[in-house]
């Protein structure tokens, strides 16, 4: 069976949904951030697929930007997490209930 564009896309979708589900089920804030990375990776694959499909390099540029943003986000997220941990000794997001109705 030939590998088509659809195969790649389905793969990306699986990865994306896995990340999405993981984000919802995991309580560990760090793992949640990792799940976001997973989703971004899936997105990157889609960009790559379409860059290939349209023979357009723009997709690759997009992916690179994505790397940077993902890194930045992770950095900031982890920094805040460290700050939270310093005060509260937890990274369980379910414990973050200072702000609620």
């Amino acid at each position: 069976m030939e590998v088509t564009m659809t195969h790649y896309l389905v793969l990306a979708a699986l990865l994306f949904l896995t990340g999405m589900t993981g984000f919802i089920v995991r309580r560990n804030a760090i793992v949640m951030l990792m799940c976001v990375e997973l989703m971004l990776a899936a997105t990157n694959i889609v960009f790559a697929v379409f860059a290939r499909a349209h023979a357009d390099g723009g997709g690759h540029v997009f992916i690179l930007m994505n790397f940077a943003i993902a890194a930045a986000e992770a950095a900031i997220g982890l920094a805040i997490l460290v700050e939270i941990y310093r005060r509260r000794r937890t990274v369980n997001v379910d414990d973050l209930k200072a702000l609620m109705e």
Partner: protein
Amino acid sequence: METHANETLLRWIVLAPLLGAAVIGLLNRRLPRRVAGLLACATVGLSFALSVVVFLRMLGLDPEHRRLTDILASWVAYGNLRIDIGFAMDQLSAVMALVVTGVGFLIHVYSLGYMAHDDGFRRFFAYLNLFIFSMMTLVLGENLVMLFVGWEGVGLCSYLLISFWFDGEANAVAGKKAFVVNRIGDFGFLLGMFLIGVTLLPHLAPGEGAFSFAVMQHHAPLLAPVATAIGLLLFLGATGKSAQIPLYIWLPDAMAGPTPVSALIHAATMVTAGVYMIARMNFLYVLTPTAMAVVAAVGAATAIFAGTIALAQNDIKKVLAYSTVSQLGYMMLACGVGAFAMGIFHVMTHAFFKALLFLASGSVIHAMSHEQDMRVMGGLRRKLPVTWWTFLVGTLAIAGVFPLAGFFSKDEILWKTWSSGNTVLWVIGFLAAGLTAFYMMRLVSLTFFGTNRASEEVRHHIHESPATMTVPLVILAVLSIVGGWVGIPAFMGGGAHFEHWLEPVFAGGHAAGTHGAAHAVHDTTMEWILAGASVAWGVLGLLLGWIVYTRRLAVAEAGRRFAGGLPYRILENKYYVDEAYDGAFIRPGYRLSRTVLWKGIDAGLIDGLLVNGSALAVAVVASVLRLFQNGMVRFYAWSITVGLTVFVLYLSFSG
């Protein structure tokens, strides 16, 4: 429409007392008592004098043109609705004007003495003057609305004067009752006016005021289809003002006011306004036999009904009050059978003798240190000679003893009733006449005969009243004697001047000839028989009353024992009518307003359920919705995915 002579004096007849009232009212304490009293008397006297002047001028006119008008200004002029501030005097209002100002003047003078020591002396005269003003507006009003203005004005003054001694709760309640009951009547009056207005307005020529009496009379045929309704509605107004069944209840209570007030307002003048109004609207009533019949029936019923109640009252003024109600019934009866002139005649004579009776009773009360219960009076004959004699004259007059004033008017009413074929009404009227004589004599007996039953202290203070009080008594007594002579009927060889004088006013009615009086039997013999019978019947009543209440005869004792039982209690309690009204309307109405309307609908249903309830519902929904905001990041993320999934699903199925 015939042209009317202009007469600018009319306005001064009306305005003079208003001026007096205004000056006294505004200056109040700054005005010395004497000046205030004199000013009040002077303005009314001026009114009377002017009335006389105008009356004399009128005499000089051709009977057909005896209608003087004085239009001051336009009051309401909107579209083709025109109501003028204006006065008119014709024969009818001339009579009324003379009576009102005349009797009013006497009572003013009387009050100088009666109220001499009262704190509210000035206020009293201001009110009294205001009353005369209102009454004159009523009487001289050029149109029905002006009449209504006066009508309301006298109602107001009545209210003010009944509750004059507002210290007493009862006085205040009585005043309010009078006003409110009158308002119920006004309700009918207003609707009657509207019906007239609505009927006439589309058909008027420019400049015609729909409510002007002349215009209404002119357009009477237009009113014919609705005359019955108008007549009944206006009559409702009259039952309020003239204390007829079912709205008579206020008048006895109104005796709470100072006695001159009772005399002037609740006997001589104001209460006859209803009769005057109906007489004034005669051109309409003659178009509607139904309304006439109702007027007559109610009048007769009131006459006998009030007469019976008067039998069992112990308050001297209450007896007179019920007597007044009864007499007003006579007047209504007269109007109802088409004898408007006789009604007015009785208004006049009644004004004399009833004012006399009230003032004399006031003199008694004055003497008895404001005691009104007859059971503690007695034997005043000697101590109050002037009062006694004048009172006796009044009693004889009201009992219809020949040749006093009451005889002529009452006898004529009964005759007209008979001659119009209303035998039943005649019987009722006849019985009521006897009752009148009886209870009046009961009053006289209890008050003036026997021995005084008052306490030592009170007895010590008994003295004849000052001249300011006795002089008016004497004048009124004279009038009670001679007042009827202007209307000595033809069968007695008199000129029936009074009737003729009024003829032009009621000519429209007679001409229309749609009611019973038209086929009246002119049977002189019968007239004599009936006159004799009624005199005899009156004398019998007087005698009976005298015997029962002064002579300790066995028969009298038996009668008293019999009457002292249940029937007596019923009468003493006025047939429990007040209680019935209270139970049927006032209490349920109050309870309805309070529990159902206010607490139930207003606070409960609208405010509680709908307004605050919906606010609460929103708050509850909001409180539930906020629970979703639980602070859980994962839940937030989940809701995002769900929202998105729904969106995507929607797209895939609709696309």
